[in-house]
């Protein structure tokens, strides 16, 4: 049976429906920033509390294995960004990571933090409605390989609520900024998050043993 409408007509209708759905969906997404800019308000990391933990402890500051800096005018839109140098991955255990917890040096070890518990609890994130972790990254030379993790202190007394962490596959960075998404496949478990972002590099994935990477605009997309 002929309807009298052309294929072109239906194409227009479909495109319109897609645009409307997209707009509605976009309105239903909230961004929860882990890092936006060094001094922005709506972000976990800001000037007053900036902190990170280097893993393993043997790779911490002063060893030259890992260095973290906040850099002006090198980020997206010439804003600030985070620069991480993995300086010597050839040293055992041949991997290193930088964790950005909600509070300076806080890894969910109850005993060490008990006197400040009430203050800490205010900083804990509820990412139950998170559907993806988004961030922008680039490498100094291109070809640097990293893995991103989040909510991975689930085995600590006051750690993350998730049974298992959010993990990306190993990503290869380009020389220019690119957007990366990590799907959250256990959203209901992210009711308590104290380690919203971490980045790992290893010698196995970076045979040269030294890489420098840049990170910016790290956020979770939450369903409204």
């Amino acid at each position, binding site marked *: 049976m002929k309807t009298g409408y052309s294929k072109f007509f239906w194409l227009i209708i479909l495109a319109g429906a897609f645009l409307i759905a997209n707009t509605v969906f976009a309105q239903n997404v909230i961004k929860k920033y882990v890092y936006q800019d060094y001094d922005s308000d709506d972000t976990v990391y800001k000037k007053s509390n900036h902190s990170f933990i280097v893993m393993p402890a043997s790779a911490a500051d002063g060893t030259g294995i890992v260095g973290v800096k906040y850099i002006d005018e090198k980020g997206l839109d010439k804003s600030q960004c985070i620069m991480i140098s993995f300086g010597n991955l050839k040293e*055992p255990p041949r991997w290193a990571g930088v964790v950005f917890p909600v509070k300076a040096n806080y890894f969910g070890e109850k005993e060490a933090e008990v006197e400040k518990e009430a203050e800490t609890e205010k900083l804990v994130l509820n990412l139950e409605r998170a559907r993806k972790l988004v961030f922008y990254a680039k490498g100094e030379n291109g070809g640097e390989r990293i893995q991103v993790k989040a909510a991975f202190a689930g085995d600590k007394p006051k750690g993350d609520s998730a*049974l298992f962490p959010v993990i990306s596959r190993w990503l290869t960075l380009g020389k220019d900024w690119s957007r990366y998404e990590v799907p959250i496949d256990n959203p209901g478990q992210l009711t308590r998050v104290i380690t919203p972002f971490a980045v790992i590099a290893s010698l196995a994935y970076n045979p040269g043993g030294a890489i420098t990477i840049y990170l910016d605009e790290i956020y979770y997309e939450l369903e409204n």
Partner: protein
Amino acid sequence: MVLFVFAIATFLSACETQKKVVAPSFFSYLTEREVTPSLIAFNPSGFDPRNPFEVNEESLAKLREDLRVLKAAFNGLVLYEVLPGLTNAILASALEQGFKAVLLGIWDPKSEKEIADMAEMIRQYCEKLALAVVIGNEGLIDNRYSIEDVQQAALRLKALIPADAAIPVTTSEPVGEYGWKPLREFGEFLAPNIHPAIDQEGMDPAAGAAWVKERANALASAAKKPVLVKETGLPNGGAFSYTPETQLRFWQAYLRDGRLIRVNAVNTWISFAALFEAFDTPWKAERTGMPIEGHWGFLDVKRRPYPVFEYLKDDSRRAPK
């Protein structure tokens, strides 16, 4: 007449049943408690992959002696790769000495030859030993292969073995990597390596054992699949805090409540029946630059037992809990 036909049919059916050999099942070995399941990660004493292993009368005699000594505490083996000549000799000798099960390993999922050799091994032994296969060991974290390589290897292997062999397949990575969904979704069961000596450095042996069990439980609950903790333990040396005594205390705490727990909430189970590892391996310490890597043995390279071995001999004789 009808009765006669029925009698003939029953007779033929009984003959068919008698001919059919029921292959031992790896999951039954772990869960049905006819014996206390006890798998030991095994390479021959003095084995060093940097030197070719010569299969000759002398080396085979040494291999038989290794297995004879281990049989006092173990009735199963965990292997990591298929090596021409050697793996077949290990299985033949294990069968001869009464071992019940082998968790076989493919080291390189990209190797067509290793997969074909594995299939041949399975065809030869699947009716005599309870078998399962781990495709790859820590190769995702070490960038030796991809999850797609592992998935392809599983398909290739299953195409090469008898359809009714029902050999469960999995891969193995450090437990922290199992947050990645494709890894959790691969295989009929999960076989993580959970090492407190690496992830919880300095933890007390009993606390370390409890941490391993908690992580295994979390994984079984998240994946809703059976979990066999493939590697765990504490080394007997290589760092100030590790001694034969701390190694013993770890295994006492780890095995105190038995080798199997049911996770009823997700209708699955966790097995703690795999023990790491048979003999000290100095080559691993040299290769990795990490002294503890050479000190995971229950016996030293000359087959002299550490205290934990005597404990395991006693524990394996107890009725399964």
